[in-house]
């Protein structure tokens, strides 16, 4: 009898602990690494335009570390849309919204899907277009591990150009000559 009781208690205990562990699983497996606050922050390299529109320059900015690379990429684009804090010029029209972002690891490519405002509110000009496109491309490639190419989309479609100059029908790689260190 006693043995049976003990077994029942054991069984109930096991079930209880399993249940607790399961409900807490997310916390156990995902939260622990982020307990330390300084590890919650990452230093991002954001590319903005130099005031004379000649080059891209890096602004280092502390951003929250995200759980997935996709969320991190989204956060980076949002920071670029917010514009620079230092004495640099923005590269993306402020009305721009990122509709969707996805990453294809085998292609080492990130797809950025913007709304129409990205295109219609862009001032145009070869210099302006190059700065806009490569501020996105370089920021993505520099900050995201395993990403080597960036494809820009507007309303889910590939477009020929942003405002009539630079060909963005295909994924683009990092542009080093445009960067001033």
């Amino acid at each position, binding site marked *: 009898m*006693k*043995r049976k009781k*003990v077994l029942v*208690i*054991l*069984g109930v*205990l*096991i*079930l209880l*602990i*399993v249940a607790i*562990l*399961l409900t807490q*699983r997310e916390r*156990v*497996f995902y939260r622990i690494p982020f307990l330390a606050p300084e590890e919650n922050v990452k230093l991002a390299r954001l590319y903005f*335009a130099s*005031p*004379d*529109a*000649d080059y891209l320059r890096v602004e280092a900015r502390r951003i929250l570390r995200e759980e997935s690379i996709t969320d991190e990429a989204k956060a980076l684009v949002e920071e670029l849309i917010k514009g620079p804090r230092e004495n640099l*010029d*923005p590269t*993306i*029209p402020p009305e721009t919204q990122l509709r*969707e972002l*996805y*990453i*294809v*690891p085998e292609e080492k490519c990130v*797809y950025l*899907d913007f709304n129409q405002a990205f295109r219609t509110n862009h*001032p*145009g*000009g*070869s*210099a*302006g277009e*190059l*700065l*806009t496109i490569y501020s996105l491309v370089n920021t993505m490639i520099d900050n995201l591990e395993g990403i080597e*190419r960036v494809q820009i*989309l507007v309303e*889910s*479609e*590939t477009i*020929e*150009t942003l*405002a*009539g*100059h*630079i*060909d963005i*029908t*295909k*994924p*683009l*790689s990092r*542009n080093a*000559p445009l960067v001033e260190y």
Partner: protein
Amino acid sequence: MKRILRHRNLNKFRCRGLGGLSLPRICFSPGGDREAKHVFADRQRGDNPYGSNPKGVILIGLMVIALIALIALPLLAQEEINPVRGKSSEATASDKYRGTSNGVKVIYDEGQAEATIKSLTFQGTDFVYLKEMVKLFRLDLKWDAITKKVTLTSGPDQVIFFVGSSQIMVNDRIKKIIQPSRFSNGAILLPIEFLSEILDGVLKAKIDWDSKTRILKVSGGRLNVRGVRHFSYRGSTRIVIDLLRPLSYKARKELPDQVIIDVYGGECNPGELSLEINDGRVKNIQAFQLPNATQIVVRLIQGLPYKDFTLKNPHRIVLDINPPQKRLDYKITTIVIDPGHGGKDPGAIGRGGTREKDVVLAIAKELKRLISERLGIRVVLTRTGDYFVPLRERTARANNERADLFISIHANAALGRGRGEGFETYFHSLALTKEAKAVARRENAVIRLEKGSRKAMSQAEFILWDMAHNTYLNESSDLAILVQEGLDKKLKIRNRKVDQAHFYVLSGADMPSILVEVAFISNPREENMLRNLDFQKRVAEGLYNAIALYKRNFERSMGLAITP
């Protein structure tokens, strides 16, 4: 999604966890081997060894649980859903959405073959199992559980989508679909409408779904003539016909302006293979499905010569229109000037309201006047008024006119405080990605093996071919430098730089081509200058001087080359 995943894991875990109850025999190892034997022996005798020390038993029990938890949880975290291991319809009863299961009859090629597959209805939409579709259409499936990415391939064609996302990528093009794919008990379900996009992309098949009779008609799913591509190079055009497997063919010229290719045993979707090209040599391509062959008609603009041969991996028939031969004209006789933007596209707009399209048109007209008056050669404008001309048409026009130079005139702009200033000149750079370079190399290298023979091209032939496939990089950069110098002598604003970038408008040009940004319209000071007629004239003068110098240098160097 996460919820379903967790739900599945819970089931599995519970099985393992409860299974653990029968484990004490194995798990008392903390107590040591001797004790183990002792307990085992006591049990067999019918005594109750636990009764003597219940606290110890509970302790051991807790340790067991901890051990199980430690082992099982990391395993759980790695647990993935296998999409191919779909569950049968009775399992779906437990699904929260309660899909009703049904059958779908699939009929191929007007009743030549039939099959029945399972389907599920969720909230009025019919879904089929991905694994069944993959089997049925013999597709290759790749599944990435972390990103939930599905890759379906058949030959050279590929469809990529993420389960639950309403976007799919068909051969590198993004498409939007109304109803996304979804999970049900770990199996991936595709809406029937979604199928047509997938099958259209990878199999070039057409789908016809009748929801009343529940019949899915598939036609042309096994097309062996898959597609037609074209590459416009300087002086020549390459047309590539993609085949699923090697097929015999014959190319012939019936009329001076058309080449007919019969692909024997070919099956195609004629609409997919027909193309408008209009690159100055080839007008269009039309495909016809004959009873036992696919016929592809290539319409040429002039009676140009052609060459045909086959290539492997993937199998394809290649037709080169006007394959490169010795160039005879050593003179610059036609110049195309391209005033940027126009019509619905105003280009950049200054703070004072000055529109790029107006300013550049005025400069282009002035430049045309200068060139035709002083050099006496033909000048063509891609637009003469305020109307829209697509980028591709601008270079196609230059190619059709057999122009020797292409000069695109623009005004610059940038976001921000409008401090950008000065003039700059760009020339086209080749594709930037490694992949694009590899494709270019593949398409170029094969010319060495004409008609499948192993005979290499002669060195001279190869150099000529290579030249034809390199855009006029050297010439374009020479011209860009001269233009920048020419403007520097005439304008008092900042001389920025000569640079390279992959301009859409320059990529189609079959001649040396540049794009000049004469000043920053987004900078109020320079906007005022751009409005000034005198400034416009000085820009035109600067451009004219550069072109005249380029022409003189070019013709002199060519003259030296032919008469030693």
